[in-house]
């Protein structure tokens, strides 16, 4: 509202709002294609999800009935929902720190401009990032297979284990195995983010440190890390959000199993809305309510992190 009244006031200084809109008609014309896509596939779904979450709705094309907040009330007592919600955030906490630390270490090594093959190594580490998740999933299922899979073959041959381990088939291990695959797939992207952050460290600092005879690890600890630290918040935010959107990897690898032990939020939503177990109806309203809670949590997380970024930047400005 504030924004609208602001515009109206500004309009009053010169032309009226209507005149100004008419004057900018060509600008609006340019915006149409982008806004059609944005409106149809982002803005409208965001609003519609709220509405759908108040419906008892058993399938596309089926009759739906308004039931108020009953879906939310039911979710609060749904154990599958709770576990999936917790698992999503557990998965995030398990992957983000590893991904960030491994990415940073690789970035520091590869940032050496005397290392001739750095771009080749970077490309190799980046390869899993561009590979389709469905492919990664199927290759991992075969490689980790307890029946003749090469990883188990290797582990048995080197006597690290006495018999095959079913890393994706055990309810205790499956989430951690998936976390490992996830970190492997996406570290390349964190590496690239860190490399971009490291470009902000001036070369003169390295040279000055070299002349003073400072050791490499001291340069890293006392010069490099403090400079790139503010980027950690942004990189952490992007990594956290992508760890919460892990649907493709988990659906393609385990479909949330075994016994729902790797069912994260989006897999839960997908199962409830599109792939109910036999004999049950899809529950679109109920799944929407779960989606709304999940979406709002992510937005809350984003806002918290944005506030953190602002804080860090302000502190920096004060120090300088």
């Amino acid at each position, binding site marked *: 509202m504030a924004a609208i009244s602001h*515009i109206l006031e500004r309009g009053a200084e010169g032309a009226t709002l209507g005149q100004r809109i008419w004057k900018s008609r060509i600008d609006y014309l340019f915006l149409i294609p982008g806004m059609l896509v944005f409106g149809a596939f*982002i803005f409208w779904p965001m609003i519609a999800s709220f509405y759908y979450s108040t419906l008892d709705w058993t399938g596309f094309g089926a009759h739906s009935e308004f039931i108020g907040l009953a879906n939310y009330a039911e979710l609060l007592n749904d154990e599958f929902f709770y576990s999936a919600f917790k698992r999503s955030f557990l998965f995030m906490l398990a992957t983000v720190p590893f991904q960030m630390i491994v990415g940073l270490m690789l970035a520091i090594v590869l940032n050496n401009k005397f290392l001739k093959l750095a771009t080749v190594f970077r*490309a190799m580490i980046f390869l899993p990032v561009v590979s389709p998740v469905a492919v990664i999933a199927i*290759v991992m299922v075969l490689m980790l297979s307890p029946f*003749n899979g090469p990883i188990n073959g290797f582990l048995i041959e080197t006597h690290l284990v006495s018999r095959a381990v079913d890393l994706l088939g055990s309810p205790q291990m499956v989430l951690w195995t998936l976390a490992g695959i996830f970190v492997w797939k996406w570290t390349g992207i964190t590496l690239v983010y860190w490399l971009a952050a490291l470009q902000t460290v001036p070369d003169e600092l390295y040279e000055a440190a070299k002349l003073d005879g400072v050791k490499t690890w001291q340069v890293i600890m006392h010069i490099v890390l403090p400079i790139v630290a503010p980027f950690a918040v942004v990189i952490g935010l992007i990594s956290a959000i992508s760890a919460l959107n892990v649907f493709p990897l988990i659906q393609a690898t385990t479909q949330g199993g075994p016994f729902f032990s790797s069912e994260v939020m989006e897999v839960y939503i997908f199962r409830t809305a599109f792939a109910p177990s036999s004999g049950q109806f899809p529950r679109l309203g109920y799944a929407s309510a779960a*989606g709304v809670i999940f979406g709002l949590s992510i937005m809350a997380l984003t806002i918290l992190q944005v506030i953190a970024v602002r804080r860090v930047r302000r502190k920096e400005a004060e120090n300088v």
Partner: protein
Amino acid sequence: MSDAALPPGRMRQSIFTPRRKRFITSIVLAVMCVIWIYPLIWMIAASFKPNSELFTNPGMIPNRPTFENYGRAWTEANMQRYFFNTLFVTVGSVLITTIAAALGGYVLGRREFPGKWPLMGLMVFTLFIPQGYTIIPVFQLLTTLGLGQSLWGLMLATCGHSIVIFILLFAGYFTQMPRELEEASRMDGVGPVKTFWYVMLPLAKPIVVTVVVMQSLQAWNDFLLPLVITLANPAMRTLSVGIYSFKGEHFVDWGGMMAASTIAIGPIVLLFLFLQRYFIDGLAGAVKG
């Protein structure tokens, strides 16, 4: 950076000269990187092994290399069809997204008009909403429009994934350009559409390439949306969904599965290797912004 380690006095005494140190670092990194991409190498190797050999020969080189797996995957498992479906969705969504984002970003980056800032705020606000939150209304909308079972619907909805990021990328780039550009073309009597197309867009070439590359990656590898749209219509599957269903439908055919995977991964990896810089700059841009 390892060079920074040694004080000048010690440099001659140490057995680890900077050059030798770099050499050792390179060897260690090379070994690590090969292990890193081992699963992908294993996939390609397995795609050339007959199924009987897959279980018995753990080595990389097939004893009797064969193309049979590719034949089976391409025709029997329908990868041929899925390949062209994916190509259609990718090319179409790249065209639409790039043009829409460039037009929108140009206006938002360079012009003042009523409603600009609320619109920017709204877009930034939606930047991080998860796909699981929007998928039901998206599918419902496509069904209402009669596109719920068609490749056109899939292609259009695929445009939505990153449109906001792309618009903001263009807007950020266009903002930095000098004002005189438009003034000069206005003096020459060139209209706004022509100015955009012949003056501004060519200048934004680096962003155009970045957006093309990122949207290709997005569309080629997309999973949830094509999965939902093709649940009732297997003929519309994309490669990602096709491989996912392959696992359920022909589970014993490992060789075929690996061939199908290699087919799915090939084009996007080639695109990456040729346009590496744009992939990496585009993604790194997200952090700086």
